[in-house]
């Protein structure tokens, strides 16, 4: 298979094609009604999404799991004056994010088949533009390109929520947009600062990811603030507690396919950003005890908090949204533990969450289409009338619970076992998440499927063939990843190991870095009289913060003026 692929030069054009195809498709969808009035736009969109998926499937075989560095690289000049290039590449970390995206897209299109009835053209156009944005974020190797694509995926999502959403769609859309945009602007500033500082020190002004990673140590005293900017952007996207409140609103109001993409793909951008950018750029800040003392507890709080709040939600979509907060907490814990198992596990959870939560949202959408309500209490006892739906919902819920034999277990287990060596207490608390996950999903399951059948639900139709087509690939993945995840782990392993080694070596290798000793320590808040209003965020004392800031002279020449 891989010989065949290299025979057609697959590795040279695949990423270009993946990036451009959806844009062409979006154009086709936009112009379709004029050019080919007989063909429904949704069919064009489905065709494009399927083609995208077929093209991307080649990555599975063509990917060389023994190489840690980037593969399938393509690079073209874009704005040479500024050192901006169109540079794409894939490694073991991004491979599955790309596959997850291309895998989800056809299902998302298929799930909108009857759900979206008005303004189909713009809807599918936006969906396809969103695809390019999402893929681009995962494969971009140029910070400028990354930022642009990050925004590119933001705008279609804003419109998808705002134009096709539920009753409070404008509130949700604006909240989503402002939240994300706030973070991404900070990230832009951080990228620019890195660009200038690194450019000044090395003499090469470029946005190239490889160059910046290699020379990231030059940011010196800026590291903490740059890390904070990146981390905030990604933490909002993840979303980490306490930046999560946009998620329930956005999820609830978004139309089904947008919810699926939001949960399945967009949230992964945050965790992917941590893995790809925040940690490799600023390892000694990220793994500094004080930062760890903030991030890891927040991750654990997210796990438990999300689960507890999910438990009492009357709205099924909101329940799933809070469960996402809980799941992504595991990912954050795994990333910060930074062992091979935990990072692999984190990536597997990212995949799993895309599949399981995606499936849950699909099913929430199907419930909504049937009853026009998302209230859990409106259902009950429907297992009798919709056995196929009930079976799949149970399976998906169990996968979300993390039952061994389903995909959910593999990721959670690897994360927890990998993290336990680093943070035993935090991991022990995180493990209680398995109890709460069972709690909220089984409670919901019981209220929806079991008990007395409400007369309103007696005529409820079971899954249609189209819906089965949407759900069955997800079900197959749930079982497949649950029982035989080795091929996936195999493909992730080398890159994850390289990442862990690289970050860890920089932390131990650089002893002269002054930042860690000056960072605020959670324990001695009272030292500076900082009566911060608390809530987990350590109130940094006046003196420690100012010592974190670059000295005035270094504002002009941050690296100490060696030039």
């Amino acid at each position, binding site marked *: 298979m891989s010989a065949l692929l290299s025979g057609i030069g697959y590795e040279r054009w695949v990423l270009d094609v993946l990036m451009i195809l959806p844009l062409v498709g979006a154009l086709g969808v936009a112009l379709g009604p004029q050019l080919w009035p007989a063909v429904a736009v949704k069919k064009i969109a489905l065709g494009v999404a399927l083609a995208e998926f077929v093209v991307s499937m080649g990555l599975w075989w063509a990917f060389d799991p023994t190489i840690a560095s980037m593969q399938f690289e393509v690079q073209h000049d874009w704005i040479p004056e500024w050192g901006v290039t169109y540079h794409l590449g894939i490694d073991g970390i991004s491979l599955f994010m790309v596959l997850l995206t291309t895998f989800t897209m056809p299902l998302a299109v298929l799930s909108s088949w009857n759900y979206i009835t008005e303004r189909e053209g713009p809807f599918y156009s936006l969906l396809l533009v969103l695809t390019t944005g999402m893929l681009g974020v995962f494969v971009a190797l140029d910070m400028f390109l990354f930022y642009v694509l990050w925004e590119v995926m933001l705008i279609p999502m804003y419109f998808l929520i705002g134009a096709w959403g539920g009753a409070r769609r404008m509130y949700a859309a604006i*909240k989503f947009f*402002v*939240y994300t945009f706030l973070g991404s602007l900070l990230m832009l500033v951080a990228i620019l600062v890195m660009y200038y500082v690194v450019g000044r020190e090395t003499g090469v002004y470029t946005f190239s990811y490889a160059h910046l990673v290699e020379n990231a140590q030059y940011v010196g005293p800026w590291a903490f603030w740059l890390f904070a900017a990146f981390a905030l952007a990604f933490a909002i996207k993840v979303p980490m507690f*306490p930046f*999560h*409140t*946009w998620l329930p609103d956005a999820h609830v109001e978004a139309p089904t396919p947008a919810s699926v993409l939001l949960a399945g793909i967009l949230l992964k951008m945050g965790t992917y950003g941590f893995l790809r950018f925040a940690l490799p750029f600023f390892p000694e800040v990220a793994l500094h005890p004080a930062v760890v003392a903030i991030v890891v507890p927040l991750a654990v709080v997210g796990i438990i*908090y999300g689960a*507890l*709040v999910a*438990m*009492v*939600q009357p709205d099924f979509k909101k329940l799933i949204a809070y469960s996402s907060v809980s799941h992504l907490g595991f990912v954050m814990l795994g990333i910060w533990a930074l062992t*091979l*198992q935990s990072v*692999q596990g984190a990536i597997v959870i990212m995949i799993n969450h895309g599949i399981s939560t995606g499936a849950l949202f699909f099913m929430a959408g199907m419930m909504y289409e049937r009853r026009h309500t998302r209230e859990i209490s409106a259902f009950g*006892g429907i*297992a*009798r009338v919709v*056995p*196929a739906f009930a079976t799949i919902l149970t399976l998906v819920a*169990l996968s979300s619970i993390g*039952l*061994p*034999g389903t995909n959910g*277990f*593999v990721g959670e*287990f*690897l994360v*927890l*076992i*990998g993290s*336990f*060596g680093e943070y*035993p207490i935090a*991991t*022990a608390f995180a*493990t*209680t998440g*398995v*109890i709460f996950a*069972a*709690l909220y999903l*089984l*409670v919901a399951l*019981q209220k929806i*499927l*079991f*008990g*007395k*059948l409400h007369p309103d639900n007696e005529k409820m139709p079971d899954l249609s063939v189209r819906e089965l087509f949407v759900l069955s690939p997800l079900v197959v993945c749930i079982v497949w990843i649950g*029982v*035989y*995840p*080795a091929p996936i*782990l*195999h493909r992730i*392993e080398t890159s994850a*190991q390289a990442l862990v080694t690289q970050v860890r070596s920089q932390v131990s290798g650089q002893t002269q870095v002054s930042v860690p000793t000056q960072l605020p320590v959670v324990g001695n808040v009272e030292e500076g009289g900082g009566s911060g209003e608390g*809530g987990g965020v350590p109130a940094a004392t006046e003196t420690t913060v100012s010592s974190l800031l670059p000295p005035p002279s270094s504002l002009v020449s941050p690296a100490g003026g060696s030039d």
Partner: protein
Amino acid sequence: MPSTVSLIWLVVLLPFLGFLANGWLSFFRPDAKRLVSGIGVGVLVASFLVTLIVVSGLAGAAEGAPYIQTLWSWMPSGELQIGLSLQVDQLSAVMLLVVTGVGALIHVFSIGYMRDDDSYPRYFAFLNLFVFFMLLLVLGANFPVLFIGWEGVGLCSYLLIGYWYSEEANASAGKKAFIMNRIGDFGLLIAMFMIYRSTGSLNFVEVFASAPSAFVINGPTITLITLFLFLGCVGKSAQIPLYTWLPDAMAGPTPVSALIHAATMVTAGVYLIARTNVLYAMAPFSGAVVALTGAATALFAATIALKQWDIKKVLAYSTISQLGYMFMAVGMGAYAAGVFHLVTHAFFKALLFLGSGSVIYGLHHAYHQTHNEDDAQDMRNMGGLSRMMPWTTGVMWIATAAIAGAPFLSGFFSKDQILAVAFARGQDATVFYVIWALGAVAALLTAFYMTRLMLYTFHGLNRTGAEELQHLREAPWIMTAPLVVLAVGAFFGGLINLPHVLPGAGGLEHWLEPATEASAQYLAEVHLSAGLEWGLMGLATVIAAAGVFGAWRLLDSDSLVPASEAPEETGIQKILLRKYYVDELYDTYIVRPTAWLSQRVLWRIVDDGVIDGAAVNGLAKVTQFLGWVGTRFQTGNLGTYVILFVVGALWLLSATLR
């Protein structure tokens, strides 16, 4: 190893194929009951036969090392290499025989019991799936594979307890079982992480091999590991404090109660401790905790069983109590005795449940004929059934005798061995005398409540009502036949491990030696003189007789009235009937506060109030206010604009002035 042992994968695969086939049928041919029962029972019988081949191959094997078959690499991640591996050794062989053997009998019984059910294929699909997971549990060669089975049986238990899900209570009971199990699984997970951290592996063979070097005897690490493992066992095997799900689990079909909640799944905790005997042997403190918990549970549950009216609830508490005995045994390092009681208990408790199932079946049919809405499981509605159900009565008496400890029946030997070990250990530490005493009292109560059950159900005056009496019949042969087979097992089961003072003693103990010998070096030899052993046996006989006789004399079954006319209970009786109000305690002090915290505090106050309200929307409000201030300048009046414009121009100009 002989090649026959390598057939082990087939044992696991067959029930799974049965699950797939029956699952398929439940959607597409729901009425093909003959086909479904053929498949459902067929795969189990086939699995049992293959098990026999495998075990005979194992018995013939010269070397003692376990046979490990890796099907495929499951979770490879750096040095963590977890394969989907099956391990056959003497311990898992015993479990295999119990699971497939008793399982097959219960499947056969189910054909009759579930005959009129609407979703018959679904029932058999779940039952097959359960057996599949149970086999995976006992065959797993490492902790994660064991965990698949561990959680899988929990899932099937959930699905089967809530099998009649239209009743809200049944679905709740399933949920409760699953969540309580999950609390235990939390412990198991933590234990796994700690084991991996200490030994760098999760494969049984490697962990046990490196345990002597990785752990300090009675050190904090090993103690914590074993205590967390025990938390898992407590959840799965319904010990104090996580036992409350098991009585509720009786909401499931009675064969399910027999298979899952008596014979197999709930004994998984005992199996796990027996499996990790090396670790427990190195942690005597944890062992004592296990034994004490077991003893306490044995007595506690027995007291509750005294006063239950629901026939299945009595048996459920009896199960909890008997599981307590098993934990007593394995906690004291008497692994063979624990497994022995597990096996005999599987026989007599499965028999008791199926017998009660037979009664319920009969009563249910009678009620169905007369359109009676009474509770078919309440003993107050039974009485004098021995005339209508002679076979059931007979086998039930055998099982009762076995569990009560009638001499030379299976339960007599197995329970006696446990108490003997406790007594012998008492010479080292007084706490074991306490354990022995608890066990002995529980044995007395066991004999009492079982006799009570038999008297109320099968003897005395009939309370079913005259019309129903016309319709009461013995169950069909397909249900009674398994009962008879089990009765044989319950009667003669003790022969596999006779006490030392009898000829041909210690069969099971010898058989299990390869699996438990590694722990032997950490455990003190148990010395008990032959005279003392005979004495204890005699005492056990006296206790059993006292229990039976006491029940016979003290209880007056003729004065009972049907449940609908029964007066309210008072005093200690009410406390026992309401199970010491433990469910209510949990509800008041754990469930409700958690829900309140989540709903009122976390969601409404923290999420909606603080984060969203104060921080997020507060920020938005500030922005809005600034915007509002800005709009005050936008009067729409050109004059104002001009003035502002001039002021602005002036300001800019003045900036250029030096």
